[in-house]
């Protein structure tokens, strides 16, 4: 099964009690979801990697379901981190890891692959925005923001609004709107 990496934004900063619940839930035992908290009170972000699912939208939905096990917490937005390894860049771009390795080392292509933003022995992190611009210059059709993450983000925002406003949306309504749901 495919594995996905992405970041989810929660509806608020996690409290110590939220963290305690998170730390004891078996749904988070294998470490595929980490938390990042901010001292300025911004909502906590979930660093999700590697989440197994057939598609990115299903991976986002899986983590969104799990975080709802903690009372009051909701995932309300999704995005990709700009800082990527070449492996992640390969998945997002549709190229193979080997292809990106060759481009990065200058053994293939015109040279000029973006330099790593941060390097530590054994691991280099690149800006996805810069890699995208480079690949586009080679003629690749690659978006800086993937349609899948935009779709997942939109679905989370809609779900959050529907829940906030206590709107009752039936499966029939979703079908009438043109969503391919089973009625």
């Amino acid at each position, binding site marked *: 099964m495919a594995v996905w990496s992405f970041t989810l934004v929660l509806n608020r900063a996690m409290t110590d009690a939220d963290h305690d619940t998170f730390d*004891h839930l078996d749904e988070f*035992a294998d*470490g595929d979801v980490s938390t990042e908290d901010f*001292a300025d009170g911004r909502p906590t972000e979930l*660093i999700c990697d*590697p989440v197994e699912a057939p598609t990115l939208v299903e991976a986002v939905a899986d983590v969104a379901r799990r975080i709802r096990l903690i009372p009051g917490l909701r995932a309300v937005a999704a995005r990709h981190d700009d800082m990527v390894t070449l492996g992640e860049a390969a998945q997002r771009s549709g190229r193979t890891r080997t292809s990106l390795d060759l481009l990065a080392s200058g053994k293939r292509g015109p040279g000029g692959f973006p330099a790593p933003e*941060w390097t*530590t022995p054994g691991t280099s992190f690149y800006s996805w925005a810069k890699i995208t611009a480079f690949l586009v210059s080679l003629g690749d059709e690659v978006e800086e923001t993937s349609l899948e993450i935009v779709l997942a983000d939109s679905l989370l925002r809609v779900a959050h609004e529907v829940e906030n406003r206590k709107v009752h949306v039936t499966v029939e309504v979703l079908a009438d709107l043109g969503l391919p749901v089973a009625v």
Partner: protein
Amino acid sequence: MVSPGRHQKSAVAAALDKAKGAGFEVRPDKNGHRWGWVICCGCHGSFKVAGTPRDPDTEAKKILQFVSRHSNC
């Protein structure tokens, strides 16, 4: 035998060493599935480290990504 305060997965322990070397605070704080925290000394943002990650290499990568995101704090 893993020394106290050191992560039992070598890849994660190595990433924590790198974080420490980059000026971040590494705080063991075992609770359930949690091993502890990596804390940015500039902005005080914190990253939770899993105790038994299924994929230690990816857990290590996430720690280093946190460090890289906060390298200019």
